[in-house]
């Protein structure tokens, strides 16, 4: 579709910051592996947000200092973490009670593809020979938790990731609420995709050109 990636738009840190701004004070938040983990670093001062990691910790804190790592205190991405005062540990069935029972408020995930109706594909490219691995992604999107997707707007090859219909196997149908890319913040609504904010120097047409699904503007 579009050639090389351009230097305009938000950095990854800025994308994380935009997502963080949409997390209200007092929220219970699950952050997916990778780019979503950055969001924790940008929550505005004065907001208290509690992080859940599905492997059994509510009240996840930052990465431990060197030498303080505990192989039995990790997050869902198997990285070393810490626990804040007021944290608690629990087993996997209780952890997914928090997820499936809609007790978590917001989940931030990465994506291979998001469709025009908010379908999400983020667990398998469906490529022959690939080892399928799903983890907790399907559980996180199955309930009424608000789903934020944070992702570059296009693939490394410049292919759109926001598509009319996903071609990769779905994680869930009609589950994404908002998409944060390097070019724009896009809300998924009953009436389609609406661009809520554009990155500096980016026009609506720039974004539409790099998007397979039809975009709309709030009037």
């Amino acid at each position, binding site marked *: 579709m579009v050639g090389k990636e351009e230097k305009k738009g938000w950095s990854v840190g800025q994308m994380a910051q935009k997502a963080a701004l949409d997390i209200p004070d007092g929220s219970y938040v699950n952050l997916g592996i990778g780019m979503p983990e950055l969001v924790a670093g940008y929550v505005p001062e004065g907001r208290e947000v509690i992080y859940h*990691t*599905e*492997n*059994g*910790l509510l009240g996840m804190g930052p990465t431990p200092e060197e030498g303080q790592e*505990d*192989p*039995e*205190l*990790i*997050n869902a991405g*198997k990285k070393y973490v810490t*626990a804040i005062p007021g944290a608690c*540990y*629990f*087993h*996997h*069935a209780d*952890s*997914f009670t928090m*997820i*499936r029972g809609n007790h978590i408020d917001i989940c931030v995930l990465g994506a291979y593809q998001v469709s025009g109706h908010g379908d999400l594909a983020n667990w*398998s490219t469906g490529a022959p*020979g690939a*080892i*399928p*691995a*799903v*983890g*907790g*992604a*399907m*559980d996180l999107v*199955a*309930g009424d938790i608000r789903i934020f997707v944070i992702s570059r707007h296009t693939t490394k090859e410049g292919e759109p990731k926001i598509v009319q219909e996903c071609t990769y*196997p*779905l*994680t*869930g*149908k009609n589950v994404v609420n908002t998409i944060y890319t390097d070019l724009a913040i896009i809300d998924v609504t009953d009436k389609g995709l609406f661009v809520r904010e554009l990155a500096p120097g980016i026009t609506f047409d720039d974004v539409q050109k790099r998007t397979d699904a039809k975009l709309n503007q709030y009037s």
Partner: protein
Amino acid sequence: MINKIFASPAEAVEDIFDGAVVMISGFGEAGSPIELIHALIDQGAKDLTVISNNTGSGHVGLAALIAHRRVKKMICSFPRTANSKVFPELYKNGEIELELVPQGTLAERIRSGGAGIPAFYTPTSVGTPLAEGKETREFKGRSYVMQHALEADFSLVKCKAADRYGNLVYNKTARNFGPIMCTAAKTTIVQAKQILELGDIDPETVVTPGIFVNIVVKVSKPAEESKLVAEDRRYPW
């Protein structure tokens, strides 16, 4: 008298038979009962169906059990992790079966197995390839998939401390699948870093009541899987 303490991992896993269904606790290396798995490799049981969240790392623990061709089928949510080499290789060659289950569904199926619930409905995986061939049903206008309980012949679990009744407490995020796997097996075998006297664990803070545990063995200094993998160790050494 009730005394569930066994002398060694070898004695603890003695009765595991060919073709058994075995649950193995752990999320990555946290909570993985590596000494029990190594004892099982030494013991020799084969054609196992293993239920565990991952497929192990490097060539130790669960990955070593798989490498020795003891596992016929894996039921798990995330079979590929950074250092997982053995399973992907066998899987690509069609030498091991895989039943892929979303992580929360895996947990709930195990919990149901322990709780005498044969099946339940969940919103997870509706409209995805993992729901294909499964019964779906509407409740209050939403679609759900029916999922069946998972039960095992044996569970291998790691914990922090145990007493002779089999009451257990865990350490941090190494708790993960341990408590539910203890409930879902005919025989639950646990490795504990510490053995405590009855009453040393506050009855308010017991995580796994002893009724769910059959065998406890003390492993005071369990190996750290990530270190063994970094050193490229292979079991048996």
